[in-house]
């Protein structure tokens, strides 16, 4: 059955195709075979036997990619037993990879994908170094099925003042010690094993897990809102030659030119504008100001970024209202997040050879009036149902027919 589905050829025909990597193509066909896009264009022939999705008058985009969620790691926020995203006993949890905690049966997954979100970063939180985030596609019966990148990023939290003894200067100093000791550990592994080395700032497994970060092969996501914290993160990244990504970034707009010059992308929620002492400069214009300065932006959802991760469309629409170009906003929920997690060659645009995560919309993906017409994940059409649609049908007429 699975094999049959995988072998299916699907042609999405006649739509306005936003490839993201290039200019939009009118009346175009996207041809999918074996889970991969094999052709995109206005003059693509539809092979005999292909399943045809008529997209005339509709909009076709890559599946949306929410670059900052805990999808699969939380079921009910207030129920401790089904939250898997943080370790309570390790503030430097670099070796903590959330993959094994992902629940493929999570009901959040269908609820989210029927809104056109096909791929997410699912990240740990808490502590100074929260652990390693994964990228998953929102379909599959096992974690292995879902995983796109088993270790997509290391996540650190510069506002974790407790981990720095109560001062952000202490947090930075501790982060520095951890990185220094990770280097030391790598250099003097033999001494470490013979116990001929001072105690290090973290457990061996965690120092080991930081090696790809120090090598610049694994991005380090640092969550920081305050201008000075983002500057500290930039300094750290320059000194240790890290592949830095800023997340949250409420005051990032103040550092737009520096972020652009350092080629450091920012993952943010455009609808963040409530002032706090760590983010007095929070404003709706953040995404637009950064984008105009040339900073690469990925959009996500503030607050409950898991249950509400589907609202990334609304966030993107508002980013447009407050200064981001529409094309940039679409890129910020498709190709840019794919690129910053090292998946740009396979995800985020409608191009030959890319994974067939595709959404057909009745109109502008960011508009409330738009309906999701079809969702493909790895070339398979996803049923547009969830626990919520079942509840709706059960109570459509009252009393319900139990």
């Amino acid at each position, binding site marked *: 059955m699975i094999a049959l589905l995988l072998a299916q050829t699907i042609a999405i025909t006649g739509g306005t195709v936003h490839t993201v990597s290039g200019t939009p193509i009118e009346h175009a066909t996207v041809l999918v075979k074996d889970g991969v896009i094999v052709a995109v264009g206005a003059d693509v022939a539809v092979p005999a036997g292909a399943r045809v999705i008529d997209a005339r008058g509709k909009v076709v985009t890559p599946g949306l990619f929410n670059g900052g969620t805990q999808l699969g790691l939380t079921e009910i926020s207030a129920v401790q037993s089904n939250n898997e995203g943080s370790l309570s006993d390790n503030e430097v949890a670099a070796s903590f990879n959330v993959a094994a905690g992902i629940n493929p049966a999570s009901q959040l997954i269908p609820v989210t994908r029927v809104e056109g979100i096909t791929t997410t970063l699912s990240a740990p939180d808490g502590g100074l170094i929260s652990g390693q985030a994964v990228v998953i596609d929102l379909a599959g019966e096992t974690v292995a099925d879902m995983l796109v990148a088993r270790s997509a990023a290391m996540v650190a939290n510069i506002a974790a003042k407790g981990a720095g003894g109560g001062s952000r200067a202490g947090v930075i100093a501790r982060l520095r010690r951890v990185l220094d000791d990770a280097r030391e550990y790598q250099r003097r592994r033999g001494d470490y094993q013979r116990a001929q080395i001072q105690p290090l700032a973290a457990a061996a497994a965690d120092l080991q897990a930081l090696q790809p970060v120090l090598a610049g092969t694994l991005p380090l996501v640092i969550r920081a809102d305050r201008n000075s914290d983002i500057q500290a993160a930039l300094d750290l990244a320059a000194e240790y030659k890290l592949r830095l990504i800023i997340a949250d970034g409420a005051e990032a707009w103040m550092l737009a030119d520096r972020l652009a010059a350092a080629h450091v992308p920012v993952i943010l929620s455009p609808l963040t504008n409530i002032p706090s002492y760590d983010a007095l400069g929070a404003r709706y214009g953040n995404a637009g100001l950064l984008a105009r300065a040339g900073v690469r932006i990925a959009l996500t959802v503030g607050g409950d970024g898991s249950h509400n991760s589907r609202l990334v469309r609304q966030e993107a629409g508002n980013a447009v209202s407050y200064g981001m170009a529409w094309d940039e906003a679409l890129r910020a929920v498709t190709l840019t997040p794919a690129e910053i997690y090292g998946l740009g060659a396979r995800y985020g645009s409608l191009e030959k050879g890319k994974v067939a995560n595709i959404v057909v919309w009745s109109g502008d993906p960011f508009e409330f*009036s738009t309906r999701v017409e079809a969702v493909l994940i790895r070339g398979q059409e996803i049923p547009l149902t969830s626990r919520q649609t079942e509840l709706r049908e059960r109570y459509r007429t009252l009393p319900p027919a139990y």
Partner: protein
Amino acid sequence: MALLAAAGCASGGAAPSGAAAPAPAARADTSSAQRPQYPSTYRRHDYRPVLIRNATIMTAAGQEIAGGSILFRDGRIVAVGASVEAPADAIVVDGTGKYVTPGIIDTHSHLGVYAAPGTWAESDGNEATSPVTGEVWAEHSVWPQDPQIPLAVAGGVTVMQVLPGSANLIGGRSVVVRLIPARTVQEMKFPGARYGLKMACGENPKRVYQNRGPSTRMGNMAGYRDAFIAAEAYRRRWDAWLADPKGTPPERNLEQETLAGVLRGDIYVQNHCYRADEMAQMLDLAREFGFSIRSFHHAVEAYKIADLLAQAGSAASVWADWWGFKEEAMDGIQENAALLQQAGARTVIHSDSPSGIQRLNQEAAKAMYAGARAGIPVTRDQALRWITANPAWVLGIDSLVGTLEPGKVADVVLWSRDPFSVYSQALQVYNDGWLVYDRADAERRPRTDFELWQVPAPGVDR
């Protein structure tokens, strides 16, 4: 100097020179209950008459007038229609391509009582020291300099109900305020609005009080019933004395005074309640004590008992799509509001959020289109009423605000485009006829004291 200092320390009650004269001493046979209780000092701000011309006027009273005009003067709507003459002294606003709606009203906010920047010092919304705190009044916590207030104004909100939080079975009195720059909450209080009594079902009270009780839902119910039984006796004592005010007045009890206000029908019950079965219990509680529940709040399962709510005449104030953050929120669906509307229940979209209050138009739009997609049609006028006329009813001010009709108070919002589009922005907000926000004019974008110096002045993108 020494004398002054001594006077300053001697007594908090010493009137400094130049202050208003103290109230005359009370007679022994009267009660403080008969004196003014923190009255509104709201005054309408003078502003010139305004004519918005050639806009799409969405009245929330059944009409959507393309190329229409609206004239308001001295805080009242004078005319709405296809063509309205501009008086000589009117400011004329070109509404071409733009939309006009009533001011948005939020039935559920904690602005002012959970003010930004959100530290312990501004955390004044839950008197979580006892499960029944009918004696507290939200207005005694409201900080008018909450920097979240101007953000809500920029989203087109003109009136909100500020509620105590949901830690307690009975959390205290709400206050209905206008969103205007003010030094005191009294200046913001909406004259004539009903007080609400915040009550909360379910997980919150039984979690907060699990060690002292209530720790179960049946404990919650017993707690409400005990409180109202006490209030019945209190009400009888007071009603007897008020009918024949001779001799010593009964001793005041603030908690029971508020609950007696509910029993008399003067104070509206505003009930945080998620689950359908619990709402049905609360309807029975209200029947037991002879009051009605003006609105359920959050009510993520209201769609399961939409018929019961319609029958009881209780409104449901709901989110467009929040769900899943706790077990009693598991069954939230996007069609909740549309299904309520379909069943004839009074439907409201509320925020309960300093962020969400800034775009209630978007929240209503999401809920309206979710209904349409599922084959549960909702008219644009009905969806607009979810954030205007229906919340006005929940607060008891629907004869004054909530629609654009001649004679109504001039709470008016001018939108850049269809307010049900994600790209729409409030351009101008008139509160009681006063231009309180203008996206195009830096002088008309209010800032709180808190923002001065430390929060960068917003452009049009705050």
